[in-house]
């Protein structure tokens, strides 16, 4: 049994050696398409997860008009909390803010009267609604004109990044996966042509369909497997790069460690399965013609 399995695997390696150039094309295309589909899919998920945590870090500051009364502050807090997309609104009394500032900058604040207004720290529950939240808060009567401070640039960067990843992974990855499938299909077709005599001999002497077809299926699986391994390395590199970019944007940003072992298993498994499917499709035609 093992002896026969070894025969089938060695036949697949013979085919890989014969079709070196086409094998290389198939492997690299599988790698790029799996990277774009699976790899960017993974990065997208991790960035989405991170983006959900971002509102806590990108909190919105709302400054009230000087002389706002306690009742007006309470009413403003109630109305801010009622806005869709707001998770929390915490009142920062002007005295407390001033005390903190004096502790952090004693020289600069020495001898000055408290110039700070009452403020709110607003935490978002939905990053995509940041603009609506800002506009709604700005319309409140107790809020200072231009009194809503929010890091729009950071939010837009994240949002655009996510959109780009989704587009790149979906469109380009899908197209390349089809291309990779065609390349694997053609590689197997060429192997079948190159090995027509072996195929005929196998069939003449009574080799089973499984024995005749298995070397070709293994070859397709090897294309996918190698492509999957390469894709995993590309995803790992992208993960490291993105982590560095996010770290430069926010000190607290962290995508965690890339599970490289699990990645190898997932990418190689997906690649091998895809390679097997493409080679079986390619073989069906040839087997119909030669049996």
């Amino acid at each position, binding site marked *: 049994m093992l002896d*026969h399995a070894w025969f089938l695997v060695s036949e697949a390696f013979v085919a890989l050696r014969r079709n070196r150039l086409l094998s290389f094309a198939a492997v690299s295309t599988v790698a790029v398409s799996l990277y774009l589909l699976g790899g960017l899919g993974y990065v997208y998920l991790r960035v989405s997860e991170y983006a959900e945590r971002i509102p806590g870090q990108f909190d919105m500051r709302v400054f009230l008009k000087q002389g706002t009364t306690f009742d007006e502050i309470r009413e403003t807090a109630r109305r801010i909390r009622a806005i869709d997309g707001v998770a929390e609104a915490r009142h920062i009394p002007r005295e407390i803010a001033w005390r903190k500032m004096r502790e952090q900058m004693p020289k600069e604040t020495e001898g000055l009267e408290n110039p700070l207004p009452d403020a709110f720290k607003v935490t978002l529950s939905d990053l995509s609604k940041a603009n609506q939240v800002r506009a709604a808060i700005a319309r409140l009567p107790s809020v200072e004109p231009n009194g809503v401070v929010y890091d729009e640039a950071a939010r837009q960067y994240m949002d655009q990044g996510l959109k780009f990843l989704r587009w790149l992974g979906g469109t380009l990855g899908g197209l390349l996966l089809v291309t990779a499938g065609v390349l694997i299909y053609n590689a197997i077709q060429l192997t079948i042509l190159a090995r027509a*005599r072996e195929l005929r*001999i196998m*069939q*003449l*002497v*009574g*080799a089973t*369909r499984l024995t005749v077809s298995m070397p070709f299926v293994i070859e397709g699986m090897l294309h996918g497997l190698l492509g999957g391994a390469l894709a995993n390395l590309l995803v790992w590199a992208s993960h490291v790069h993105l982590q560095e970019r996010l770290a430069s944007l926010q000190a607290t940003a962290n995508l965690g460690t890339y599970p490289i072992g699990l990645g190898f298993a997932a990418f190689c498994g997906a690649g091998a399965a895809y390679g097997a499917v493409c080679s079986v499709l390619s073989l069906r035609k040839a087997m119909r013609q030669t049996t």
Partner: protein
Amino acid sequence: MEAPPSPSQPLVVFDQVEVKYAETVALDGVSFEVQKGEFVFFVGKTGAGKSTVLKVISREVRHTGGRALLNGRELNGVRASEVPYLRRQMGIVPQDFALLAGKRVWENVAYAMRAVGASAREVRRRVPEILERVNIGHRADAFPHELSGGEQQRVAIARALINNPVLLLADEPTGNLDPEHSIEIMELLAQLNVRGTTVLVASHDVMVVERMGKRVIRLESGRVVPPVEEMGLA
């Protein structure tokens, strides 16, 4: 071991067999029987249908009419998954030898054995024995291009013997050989027949066929031509 000839059940029965490809009729009501242990030549011009007869027996072609039986079993009733096991009962020698150019003589035979599931140990044990049986053992390490046509045909026959077949089908085995090598190959097939293997040969080489003095089934345009005595012309 090869089965001894048995007059009770013919090995091959063709009863009004027809094979039609689209517009072409390859076999048109062909009937004959072959007993176990027989040596039979199918002769005729190109396109007469002799190769098609062998292909029906090896199930490379399905007949479209009549009955074709091997060992009492209707060949069209053999499922696709059973065809490999059917072919292991027979050895097939193609006209073009179909040897693998990049493999040595012994590797050509070993490859076929490995394809039908023989272990590496079994291959090492049986390949020299099979090569000796067809008198090509002394060229075991040669590549096909280093062999004469006759020697290449011996390798093809050796490969056909790996499953110890009871039936050997040879399609124009002397088609690419000179007269001297043709006789040599036919004598080899006759030796195998003496040991019990039923041999069916498609050939258009009248000289060789006559020299062998075996049973002849003559085909013309897909039909069996009755022997002269049956036509009342003797």
